[in-house]
């Protein structure tokens, strides 16, 4: 089903992708501003079934520091050189664009290309994840996927490899070379590949979540979370934040629950697990949304400051991940070397 998206729906889409960011993925503000040109709208969002499975497809995303993106704005067509390089390498033009990361600011990234390509409602993660080797195409080891990336000062790098870990390391090196944040494009796959190897309907879900959130934001937490199809994990004041003794990227935030419970959010670049009284209540790939209890702002992990009163809800993980143990292995907390955080249920 082709869906026509109106300009007025942009804030709801932003809100939805923020929820799916699980506390990471970057704020959508910058992209909302970039898309605030009414002449770009309305936009068409294609369902997978409406497109010929043989059509080549590409995915685009910003990688690196999301904070840096807010400081150093990308150019007006940051992906054009990357797409040109990919098309030249492949020898074909690619008419379809999908999303690489279905949470945070990258949920909106394909919208910047919707004027020139058909935007399909599919992404490679269904939530925010930190690593390029965690993209569903790489988790499933779909052959022939290439990546292009900025290397700074107009330079473009193109990488073809069968080892996802190499992709992650080399693109990461290029990102650093490019100044800490830049664009990347994946290509070399078709619409048909997405049917089995991608998370579908993420944009529609984001729109639904965002719309529901905006209308229910002032309702009691239990009603809000029920409306979002989620579950309340806990509520309380942040009393401590400690970083992992060996991995400074990992932090544990302690929340004194309103009922005396001891809650804990373990996060890296996004929230990975939630504990209550020593028991894991939720862990990645489940989406853990942290809201400011008073303003109901959707908080990023960097905003978990001591003294803040927060409400935490979980949203179900995309089913794609749980269909095989091999897929789960790439996204659970243990993928980052964090033990004892698997949700037993």
């Amino acid at each position, binding site marked *: 089903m082709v869906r026509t998206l109106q300009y007025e729906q942009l804030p709801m889409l932003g809100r939805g992708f923020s929820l799916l960011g699980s506390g990471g993925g970057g704020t959508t503000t910058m992209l909302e501003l970039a898309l605030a040109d009414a002449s770009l709208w309305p936009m068409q969002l294609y369902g997978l079934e409406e497109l010929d499975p043989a059509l080549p497809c590409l995915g685009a995303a910003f990688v690196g520091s999301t904070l840096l993106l807010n400081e150093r704005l990308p150019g007006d067509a940051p992906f054009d050189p990357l797409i040109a390089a990919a098309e030249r390498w492949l020898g074909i033009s690619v008419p379809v664009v999908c999303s690489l990361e279905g949470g945070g600011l990258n949920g909106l990234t394909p919208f910047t290309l919707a004027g020139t390509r058909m935007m399909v409602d599919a992404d490679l993660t269904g939530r925010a994840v930190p690593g390029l080797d965690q993209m569903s195409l790489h988790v499933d080891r779909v052959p022939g996927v290439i990546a292009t990336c900025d290397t700074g000062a107009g330079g473009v790098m193109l990488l073809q490899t069968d080892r996802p870990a190499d992709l992650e390391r080399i693109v990461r090196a290029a990102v650093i070379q490019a100044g800490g944040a830049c664009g990347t494009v994946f290509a070399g796959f078709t619409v048909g590949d997405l049917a089995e190897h991608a998370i579908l309907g993420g944009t529609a879900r984001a729109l639904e979540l965002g719309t529901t959130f905006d209308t229910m934001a002032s309702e009691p937490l239990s009603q809000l979370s029920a409306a979002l199809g989620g579950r309340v994990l806990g509520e309380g004041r942040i009393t401590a934040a400690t970083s992992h*003794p060996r991995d400074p990227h990992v932090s*544990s935030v*302690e929340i004194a629950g309103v009922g005396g419970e*001891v809650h804990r959010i373990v996060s890296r670049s996004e929230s990975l697990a939630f*504990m209550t*009284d*020593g028991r894991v209540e939720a862990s990645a790939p489940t989406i853990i949304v942290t809201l400011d209890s008073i303003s109901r702002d959707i908080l990023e992990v960097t905003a978990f400051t001591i003294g803040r009163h927060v409400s935490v809800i979980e949203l179900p993980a995309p089913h794609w991940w749980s269909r095989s143990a091999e897929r789960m292995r790439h996204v659970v907390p243990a993928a980052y070397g964090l033990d004892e955080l698997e949700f037993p249920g």
Partner: protein
Amino acid sequence: MSENLRLRALLAHPANGGLRAVAGPAEAEWNEVVIESNESELPAEVSGGIAILSASPPTTPWQQDALIRRVRDRGFVALAMPGIDNFGAGNLALATRLGLSVLHVDKPLMLAKACWQLLEARDALTLGYVRKVAQSIEYHATGLPDLLHHLSSNVGHAIALIDEKGVLLEAGGHFEPAMHSAVNFAPWVDLARIDGGGTAASVRVDSPSRAGLRIAFFGNGLSDPQLRALGVAAEVAMPAVAARILIDEVVAVNEASVSSGLLRDFLEQRGGIEAELEQRLLDHGWRTAGFHLGFRILGRTRLDSFQLLRFVTQQLGQLAVDSHATMTGRGVTGWLTFTESQSPRQLEQHVFSLRKVHNTVRKAFNVATGVGAFENGSAGLVATISGATDAARIAANRSGTGWFVRFDALGLEQLLLSWTEHDTFVPAAESLLAPLAVGGGELLATLSAYLDHESGTAATATALRLHRNTVATRIQRVQELLGVDMSDPETRLALHLACRAVRSK
């Protein structure tokens, strides 16, 4: 086992491997002890035991949370392991919330041994204490307090020597008054327990010289097995304590008689000290240089000078002044020594302190106290002690001043009187005035009054309600009977003193 293991008993155990309560309830009781290296090896289901883990805890807060949770879920109510004191506030809040006592222990195996002793091997516990008592006796002790220190530090519990009135000595801790009143002095061994956790095991001390003494091992929250074991330890330690009391007493009596002899020698030399005596004084810690304030505490009735000396020495020890005392005759002679001269105000303060000592001593002994003048140097020491001796003799008859007289406040009359009361003077005075006995003593009365009134006939007549001619006649008669010339001032003084001495008798 009928009795459970208690947290307080374990904390009071001297060899508990460095156990510290970190979080959770202050009072806890366990019926089971499980020792493993890791949490995963613990039994799946217990009801109310303590888990002792020898491995270090995990480092991340969520793993620490999870550990607490899992130990509690297995049914344990206490967790002891090394390094657990590094847990964060949230971990400890969780432990408290779940009702799990969190204990830090440096040496888990030692803690396990302590648990085993308290739960199952009470004889081993007793034997351990007894062996430690034996070790304490092995070391040289300079006195009873030293012996008690040895016992306390070896056994690992505080010890006190008590009688029915209070605590005489204590080492390793403070014996609370409430604890003291809970001790039963009648039985041979007594195990006492008070609200608030105080516990004590005491044994009667079988001492020939001092009755009613007990030694007590005490501590907070000791369990019954511990108390019983400490009771045995006290029984074993008791003979050593009794012997030590006796030895200390013999030493003290000996010391007192030596110092008493030394003071006598010193006073006999009247301040001119020979080198040999000086050395003996120094050996005794007596310095004759400096400023001295002598005092004498005299028994008004027969008393045990040694006991008095002991009591006085104890009281003097509470003054912030260098003091010496020894027994002489029917009392105690002593002095305060100062390196610098004291202002009148300071001096008053010192006399006041001595008066307080006197008042305390009077509660136990019927004594009178004299204080000498403030004097300097070796001769001054002799002078202040003799002044104190005179003052004490006067004080013995002075209930009005609380049996306390200060030399400076004597007045010349009192001084003269004290001087004339010497054994040789009084008989001499009596024989001098013996001729005046004719006529019923009226001549002696008239002579006394005449001398008191500056040899004035008219004043004497008024005082005695006689006619002045009568007075003149009687004085004439006295001169004839005694064969003296009353116009001679020396004669008048001698007669005056003799009258005082005879009349005051």
